[in-house]
C-alpha cells in the first residue's frame, strides 16, 4: 500500500524529524484562508497528491510566488489529471531554498535478507541514471534487523557520502528517524528524494512510504479506497472487490490458472503458440466452487476477452470442485465464449466426468489445450 506524500511526511514528523510546514487542501477548502490560519504565505509549492511515479515531470508540482498564483494553481491542479488520475488532495508547502539535494532510502534486500540503507549525495529526479552511470556514488549499508540502525552507523553512512560537521549529525538523525518509520510501519520502502540541504540541516522535500500489504491488519489507519491509488484498471478494481487476483493485459485470450507460477506459465504457453493473453487470473490453492464460478463468470463478462483458457493442476485444488464451479457459471450466464479446460491432478477423473455430463471436454496435456484454444 503506497502512502500519500502528506501521510509520509506526517509520519516522519511524528517520529521526530522536522518536515516543511504545510496545509492539506480538499477541493471545498479556501486555500488562502487555510494558509493564513496555518501562518503560511507565498512563496509556496503546490503539490498534487497522487500515487503515481514521475509526478514532478507530469506537471503535478508548481511553485506559487504570490497569493494570486496560489488561487490559480490550486484551481489548475485540482482539475489536472496526472497520468489519468485526479487528486483528491493538494499539499501546499513552504518553499524551502536549498543548496543541495541528497538521496536516502531503506528497502529490504531479498538476497541478503536484511534491510539496506541507500544514500547518495546526488539526489533528485535523475537518481536512477546516476545509479547506472556512477554506481559507486550510491552507498549501500546493511542493517541487523534485531539491533536496528545505530547512531554511529548512520554517521558512517553520512561520512561516506561526503557529509561533515553539523550537517552530518542532522543527516544521521534523519536516517535514524527513517529507520524507525521503516520498522514501525512495516515498510517495503521508505524514501526521501530529494532530501534538501539548507545550511547545516537536512529537510525531506519529498517522502514516500510503501507499507507491506501483508501487514495492513496492524495498520488499519491506511486502509483506503483502491481506486485512488491509480495502480489498477477499472476491471482490476472490480476484480479486487470480488476477491479475485486479476491483472489485465492487452490480448484477447482470457486465462485462469491455479497458483501464480502455473498461471504465468499458462500465459507464456499461449504466447509461445501465437496467442495473446488478455489477463492473469490466479484462483490460488484450494479454490471453492464459488470462487471458480466467479472467476469464469468474470472473464465471460469482460468485453475484450474472446475466448477463455483454464489451466488447472490440482494439488489442494480439487478437480471436481473446479468442474462444478465451471458448470455453475455456465448455467447462470450461458456459454457466451469458447472455453477450453485443462484439468490434471487431484480428482481429475471426477472433474472430467462432471464436465462431460455437461457437454464440455477437458484436456490433460496443457500444450494440446493451448493449441486448441488458439485454433478457435
Amino acid at each position: 500500500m503506497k502512502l500519500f506524500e502528506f501521510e509520509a511526511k506526517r509520519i516522519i514528523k511524528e517520529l521526530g524529524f522536522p518536515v516543511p510546514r504545510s496545509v492539506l487542501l480538499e477541493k471545498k477548502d479556501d486555500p488562502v484562508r487555510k494558509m493564513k490560519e496555518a501562518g503560511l504565505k507565498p512563496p509556496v509549492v503546490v503539490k498534487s497528491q497522487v500515487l503515481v511515479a514521475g509526478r514532478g515531470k507530469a506537471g503535478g508540482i508548481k511553485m506559487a510566488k504570490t497569493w494570486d498564483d496560489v488561487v490559480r494553481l490550486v484551481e489548475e491542479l485540482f482539475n489536472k489529471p496526472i497520468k489519468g488520475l485526479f487528486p483528491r488532495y493538494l499539499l501546499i508547502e513552504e518553499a524551502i531554498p536549498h543548496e543541495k539535494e541528497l538521496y536516502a532510502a531503506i528497502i529490504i534486500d531479498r538476497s541478503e535478507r536484511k534491510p539496506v540503507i541507500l544514500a547518495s549525495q546526488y539526489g533528485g529526479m535523475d537518481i536512477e541514471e546516476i545509479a547506472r552511470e556512477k554506481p559507486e556514488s550510491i552507498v549501500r549499508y546493511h542493517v541487523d534487523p534485531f539491533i536496528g540502525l545505530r547512531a554511529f552507523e548512520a554517521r558512517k553512512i553520512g561520512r561516506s557520502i561526503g557529509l561533515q560537521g553539523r550537517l552530518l549529525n542532522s543527516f544521521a538523525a534523519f536516517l535514524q528517524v527513517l529507520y524507525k518509520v521503516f520498522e514501525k510501519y512495516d515498510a517495503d520502502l521508505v524514501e526521501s528524494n530529494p532530501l534538501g540541504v539548507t545550511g547545516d540541516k537536512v529537510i525531506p522535500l519529498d517522502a514516500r512510504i510503501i507499507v507491506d500489504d501483508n501487514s495492513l491488519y496492524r495498520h488499519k489507519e491506511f486502509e483506503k479506497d483502491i481506486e485512488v491509488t491509480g495502480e489498477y484498471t477499472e476491471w482490476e478494481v472490480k476484480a479486487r472487490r470480488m476477491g479475485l487476483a486479476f491483472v489485465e493485459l492487452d490480448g484477447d485470450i482470457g486465462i485462469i490458472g491455479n497458483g501464480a507460477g502455473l498461471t504465468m506459465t499458462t500465459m507464456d504457453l499461449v504466447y509461445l503458440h501465437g496467442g495473446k493473453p488478455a489477463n492473469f487470473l490466479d484462483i490460488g490453492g484450494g479454490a471453492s466452487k464459488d470462487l471458480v464460478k466467479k472467476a469464469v463468470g468474470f472473464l465471460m463478462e469482460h468485453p475484450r476477452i474472446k475466448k477463455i483458457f483454464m489451466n488447472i493442476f490440482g494439488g489442494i485444488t480439487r478437480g471436481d470442485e473446479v468442474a462444478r464451479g465451471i458448470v455453475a457459471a455456465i448455467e447462470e450466464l450461458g456459454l457466451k465464449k469458447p472455453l477450453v479446460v485443462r484439468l490434471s491432478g487431484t480428482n481429475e477423473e471426477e472433474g472430467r466426468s462432471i464436465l462431460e455430463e455437461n457437454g464440455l471436454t477437458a484436456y490433460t496435456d496443457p500444450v494440446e489445450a493451448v493449441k486448441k484454444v488458439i485454433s478457435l
Partner: protein
Amino acid sequence: MAIIVDEKTRLIVQGITGREGSFHTKLMKEYGTKIVAGVTPGKGGQEVHGIPVYDSVEEAVKAHPEANTSIIFVPARFAADAVYEAIDAGIKTIVVITEGIPVHDALRFVNYAKSKGVTIIGPNCPGVISPGKAKVGIMPGHIFMPGNVGIVSRSGTLTYEIAYAMTKAGIGQTTAVGIGGDPVVGTSFVEALQMFEDDPETEAIVLVGEIGGDMEERAAKMIEEGKITKPAVAFIAGRTAPPGKRMGHAGAIIMMGTGTAEGKVKALESVGVKVARTPMEIPALLKEVLKK
C-alpha cells in the same frame, strides 16, 4: 539420501487442529511421513488423526524427544511466534506453509533461525518432499517418484506440473523443495542448490524460477564459479508477464536490471544451463544431461 527431509524425519505439525493443518496431517500420514505430535495452544490433550496434540512445542518435544522437524499451518498473524517457539524448543528444520506473513516478521525470524543454525523453508511455500521417504508439505504425493533428480522451485503448482511430467517420463526425484514465493524466504535458491550439490544421490538438478528478485541470477553465478558441478536444467515462468510494481527508485537501484525472465534465461544459458521453453520440455532436457 535426500535433502532436508527423509526417512529419519520425525515431524511436529503446528496448527494441527485447523482446517488445513488437519487435512494435510492426514495426507502426510497416508504418504508415510512419521508425524509424532501436533501443537495448538489451548487444545492440548486432543488427538487429530490419531496424533496427540500439545499446548506448546516444548511439551511436544519433551514427550517426543525424537522430533526434529516442524511444519507450520498457523495463521499469518501468529506464524512468527510459532517459528520462534519451534526454534527455541530445539527443532532444526522448519517448513512454513502459511501465506501472508508480514515481511518484517519473516525478516526477523529468518535472521534468528540463521543465528541458531536452523533451516527454514518458506514462508508461503508448498513444502518439501523426498519421494518414498517423507512428505512435509501440501503437494499431491502421487505425482512424485523416487529417483536421482533434485527440484528446487519458487512456485507450487508449477513444481507439480514439472514433477508430474518427469514422473510420467520415468525420471524420479531425490527431493523437491518449494522455497516459497515471498520476498524474504529462509532458504534461497542458492542454498538449496548447494544442498543438492552436496547430496551424493542427486545426479542432476531442475531449477524452477520466476520473474522478480535475483535468485536465478545468483544461482547462475554459483554455477559459473564452479560451486555447482552437477548438471542443471531450468524453467523460468513469466516471460510474458508485465513488469511488477515498482518499489520507488530504491527498487530500481537495488535490482539494477535483474528480475526479468529474459535476464534470468540469459544468465542461466550463459553458464551452460539448458532452459526449457515449456514445463513439458524438462524431461527431455534431463535425459540429455543425464546421458553424459
